[in-house]
């Protein structure tokens, strides 16, 4: 397949979105929107597969595929162009592949909805923005995708726009993201100021050059750029302190939660940092900060997930937590670990959300864990599909999540131990292990609660499907949970489940992704803390400078470095093996505890919960962070707005009106017979002009 086709990838979903918008216009056309949208995502997936080998082999300037110049002023030039390297291809696989599966599922899930076409318009538009984001050759185009996905997220969260909480959640998501986006925009400005370009390929290669120059002294811009960009990443990827929008975003339809708020959009921040990792390396504090925020968020969100009763909220906090892992990964200089976890997480979290959606669908909108139990008989397929997803999320040995999580934790441990190990990374790795325990526990808490134990359920009050033509003849569904149809709903889930179990093994054993990352700009240009060179030159050592020659060549050229390498490599390998054992044990421990407390001995759990009532209350209310933000930011701003408005009306405008009366009074005093306002003002003006002119003359001469 010719490589040029790759330029079409974002535009096909855009066309799909336009067609779906046309479908909105007539009720009879609505049904066409689903298939159109699925096709508009699946064709790009086929193109991605077709050009994969050609795209991975691109060298140098060929990696940049430009369509046209978007905007330029003087030296500032932005192209509508794509940067194709292996990292782009990985992201495209995730976005279009998982996207097609979720869209297919949504065809069934959204059936009979009034806004069916509107929903698919949003989905297609989202894929346009997301593919643009991951393919962008420059920061401004990336920003277009970045804001575009934010918009689609806004529209899709607000899909049920008659529900006030959905509207509030949509607004919150957009605004919180905008806070991050301001940081991102300022980061772009500063990048342009420093590098004289916004092109990703040039910026990263320049940053690599700076890093490899032993005499280079980092400027204050180098220190600031990563922190500004980071703010954007934390907004989009829901990290502390900007994570608050993601749990609320669950007000959107479940396929949206799966696609936008689990598999793709929220990982954009991880992608951006991985893509620009050399720029982040220029600031010695940037990546440790990313890792710290990631580690803390992972643990923090994990604790909240323990005590949530809303099915989707549990998964939402779990997503925040898993994103924290990814940031820990890139922060530990393992962009491979971060992207690997991003990849596997897309599978299992999409699967978990969609199976949760099936449960919700079957129970007429019921999401409360307390209102359901023992559903395995009613929904056997969903039960075991979700089981696969839960295993992967919990990090059960040899599932996808196991390998990717292990890579991150092991890499953090490698940074945290050894000769140049930093305590920070050591603690972060321990926090990661603790989070892994929590993850396994809350994941299986949910699964055991929903599918095991005595059968019991309360139907929700969602009768949104009253005009549902698919179930029109089947009135029982409103009273009894039922299994989802194989097509179009369960078959995509089976594919996802396959990925959730095997994707990790495939990546781990073939080394495909590791090699891809090494040959992309996401490869860290330096290996921090590995000082192997005997010469007292740089404290950093170059591994790869964005070309295909890998470490082996370096090793043959520098024997001294090679020995250091292999010693280091052995140590890292040892840590990896050790971490695998530890995390397997932790996963099994978590699952075991969950089984005991939430399946075998539920009364005991209630007693324990009652004993720690305060803690449970605080966790259930998410540490009252929303209330805190409302009190400290929203309310004062609003008060300020009212104050300014009053000031504007009374003082500023009042002053002007008063000034306006002065000439009128003057006019009266001179010519009492003429009292028209016009004349007064006119006189005032003439006087004013005369005085001003006099003043000018006086000053000038």
């Amino acid at each position: 397949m010719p490589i040029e086709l790759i330029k079409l990838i974002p535009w096909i979903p855009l066309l799909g979105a336009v067609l779906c918008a046309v479908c909105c216009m007539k009720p009879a056309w609505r049904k066409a929107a689903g298939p159109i949208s699925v096709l508009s995502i699946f064709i790009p997936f086929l193109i991605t597969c077709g050009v994969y080998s050609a795209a991975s082999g691109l060298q140098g300037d060929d990696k940049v595929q430009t369509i046209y110049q978007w905007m330029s002023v003087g030296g500032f030039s932005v192209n509508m162009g794509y940067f194709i390297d292996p990292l782009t291809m990985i992201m495209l696989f995730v976005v279009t592949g998982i996207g097609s599966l979720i869209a297919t599922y949504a065809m069934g899930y959204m059936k009979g909805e009034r806004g069916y076409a509107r929903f698919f318009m949003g989905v297609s538009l989202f894929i346009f923005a997301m593919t643009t984001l991951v393919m962008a050759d420059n920061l401004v185009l990336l920003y277009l995708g970045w804001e575009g996905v934010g918009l689609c997220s806004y529209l899709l969260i607000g899909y049920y726009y008659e529900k006030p909480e959905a509207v509030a959640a949509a607004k919150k998501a957009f605004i919180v993201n905008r806070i991050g986006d301001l940081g991102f925009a300022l980061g772009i400005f500063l990048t342009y100021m420093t590098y004289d370009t916004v092109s990703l390929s040039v910026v990263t290669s320049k940053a690599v050059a700076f890093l490899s120059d032993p005499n280079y002294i980092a400027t204050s811009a180098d220190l600031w750029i990563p922190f500004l960009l980071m703010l954007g990443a934390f907004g989009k990827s829901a990290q502390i302190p900007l994570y608050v929008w993601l749990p609320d975003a669950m007000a959107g339809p479940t396929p949206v939660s799966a696609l936008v708020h689990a598999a793709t959009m929220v990982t954009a921040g991880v992608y951006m940092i991985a893509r620009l990792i050399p720029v982040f390396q220029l600031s010695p504090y940037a990546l440790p900060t990313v890792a710290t925020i990631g580690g803390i968020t992972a643990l923090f969100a994990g604790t909240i997930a323990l005590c949530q009763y809303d099915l989707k909220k549990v998964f939402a906090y779990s997503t925040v937590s898993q994103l924290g892992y990814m940031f820990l990964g890139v922060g530990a200089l393992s962009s491979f670990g971060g992207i690997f976890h991003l990849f596997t997480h897309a599978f299992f979290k999409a699967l978990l959300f969609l199976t949760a959606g099936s449960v919700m669908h079957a129970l007429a909108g019921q999401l409360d864990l307390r209102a359901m139990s023992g559903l395995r008989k009613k929904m056997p397929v969903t039960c075991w599909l979700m089981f696969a997803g839960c295993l992967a999320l919990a990090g059960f040995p040899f599932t996808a999540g196991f390998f990717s999580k292990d890579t991150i934790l092991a890499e953090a441990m490698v940074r945290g131990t050894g000769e140049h190990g930093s305590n920070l990374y050591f603690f972060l790795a321990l926090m990661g292990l603790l989070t892994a325990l929590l993850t396994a526990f809350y994941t299986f808490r949910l699964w055991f609660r929903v599918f095991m134990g005595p059968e019991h359920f309360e139907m929700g009050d969602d009768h949104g499907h009253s005009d549902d033509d698919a179930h029109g003849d089947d009135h029982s569904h409103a009273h009894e949970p039922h299994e989802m149809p194989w097509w179009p709903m369960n078959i995509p889930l089976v594919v996802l489940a396959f990925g959730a179990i095997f994707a990790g093994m495939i990546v781990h054993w073939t080394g495909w992704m590791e090699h891809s990352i090494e040959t992309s700009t996401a490869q860290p240009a330096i290996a921090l803390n590995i000082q192997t060179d005997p010469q007292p030159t740089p404290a950093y050592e170059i591994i790869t400078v964005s070309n295909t020659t890998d470490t082996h060549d370096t090793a043959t050229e520098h024997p001294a470095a090679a020995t250091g390498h292999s010693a280091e490599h052995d140590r890292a390998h040892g840590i990896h093996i050790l971490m695998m054992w530890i995390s397997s044990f932790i996963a099994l421990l978590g699952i075991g505890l969950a089984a005991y407390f939430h399946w075998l001995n539920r009364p005991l759990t209630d007693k324990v919960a009652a004993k720690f009532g305060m803690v449970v209350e605080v966790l259930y209310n998410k540490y009252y962070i929303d209330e805190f933000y409302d009190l400290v930011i929203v309310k004062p701003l609003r008060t300020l707005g009212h104050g300014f408005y009053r000031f504007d009306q009374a003082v500023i405008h009042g002053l002007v009106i008063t000034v306006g009366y002065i000439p009128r009074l003057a006019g009266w005093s001179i010519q009492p017979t003429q009292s028209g306002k016009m004349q007064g003002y006119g006189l005032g003006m003439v006087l004013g002009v005369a005085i001003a002119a006099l003043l000018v003359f006086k000053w000038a001469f």
Partner: protein
Amino acid sequence: MDLLLILLTVFPLVSALPLMLPIKAFDSRKTVWSYALLSTLVSLLFSLIVLYKFDFTNTGAMQLATSLSWVDAFGLNFGFGIDSISLWLVLLTTFLMPIIILSSLTAIKTRVREFYFWLIVLETFMIGTFVATDILFFYVCFELTLVPLYILIGVFGSDKRKRVEAAKIFFLYTFTGSMLTFAGVMYVAWFNTMLPTHLFAAAGTWSFDIQTLYLAAANMSLTEQSWVLGALLAGFAVKVPLFPVHTWLPLAHTEAPTAGSVILAGVLLKLGTYGLLRFALPMCPQAVVEYAWLIGIFAVLGVLVTALICWVQTDVKKLIAYSSVSHLGFCVLGLFALDADNTGAVGAVMYMINHGLSTGALFLCIGMIYERFHTREMADMSGLGRAIPAWASFTVFFVLASVGLPGLNGFIGEFLTLLGAFLSPANVLGYEYAAIAGLGMILAAIYLLYMVGKIIFGPLKVPDVHNDDGTHDLKDLNTREIATLLPLAAACLILGMLPNGMLNSLQAPVEQLTYSAKAVATQANDTFVTDANATPLRLAIDDHTPEFAPGIAPQLTDPTHAPLTKTAHRAAER
């Protein structure tokens, strides 16, 4: 002599006259409306011919220039000419006019003839301000725009009691300001007559040619420039409107009929920023550099304060009116950025066009709601997305353009103005301005989405106008209304995705207008570093020495700035 620009300018005025003659056919509302629509469409056609004839290889030159003498003894002319800045603004005007008339069919039912008469007359003056190459001609048109709008607000406004008051405040507020502007302009013209004749062609004589006055103004001392800048700002800042002289705008907007609001937001506010760019920057470069920080602070304050004010509005139209103040703060910030590549100023011109399109469109959308419900209170309506989906889709689209979503037009201007402010030399503005004004991006999202959340989303609630549960008014957009909004939506999308043609064409003229101010900025920076006491830029008027060469007007000798000199010579030949 090229008559095209004269035709373009005068045609609306001439075509409006029959509306005031006792012609029977014009008793029918529909006929008057069709006639007005036709007239503005012909104007649009003329402007398209101008676009076609415009030479895009030389966008900085005043093209299609022509001149009619007015008062020879006083050097007064009606000078016509168009560079790409004027061209795009003229096109904005002629593009918006038919749309406005299309939208007014059902809104205006009484005194129809007068309404369309004044609307079309207004078009002449608006075009006149943009094509004038003679400062007095510019000024006359600038002032005369007030009269039609005064009548449009005062007679056709929404609330009988308040509209007269609003019109009066609007008129007097802007008129007072522009009187001072007039004083400033007259001072520059007088200053020119006092210059020794050997300096440049028209020195020492009465002339109101803009290019001549640039050359004259270059010889003014910093003090004089500061006063002239102050005088220009008095008129233009009120027009923009720059915080804190903005309070007339929300009043005028709320009371004006939809057509008036669209024209006001779409074109008339741009007269202020256009004036700043065309006159303040090239005429008072030293003063601009000296006081940019102050103007910048007011612009940033305006962005933030009025954005917060927007958030607590209950009247939709007032919200959009205040948002104009907030948005134009970005525009002013870009104008005074003076960064090396003119990112800020080019972005500001983009911003003028884009704001005209998206905010104009938002006023149209609100007008359609007002026509249906006779209320604009957000508390009275909710969930309109379900009731009138086409209207809701358009409104959301224009809100997104206004918020500055990349891919739509608003983003280009916002991004470039902020980038310009960020890159601005430290002695002019600086990154702090961009960082703080950037908060306006967040606030814009807050107040506009707040509005969308209130009126388009949420449970359906329709104001009960006719005591029939509101069902009477629940008609979605008709074909005419869609035809009103669709061109605007298309323009927003095209300018968002393909802004480059416009951006490229703007670089040459903007470079000419900012050249001297930028030179002062860099020179002042250097001077500051080398010798704090050196004042090589300040030339006193009574310093009649041969070194009296314009110190900061390198355009005179710089061959790359030939168009400027050429026009100056042309002015002299006349």
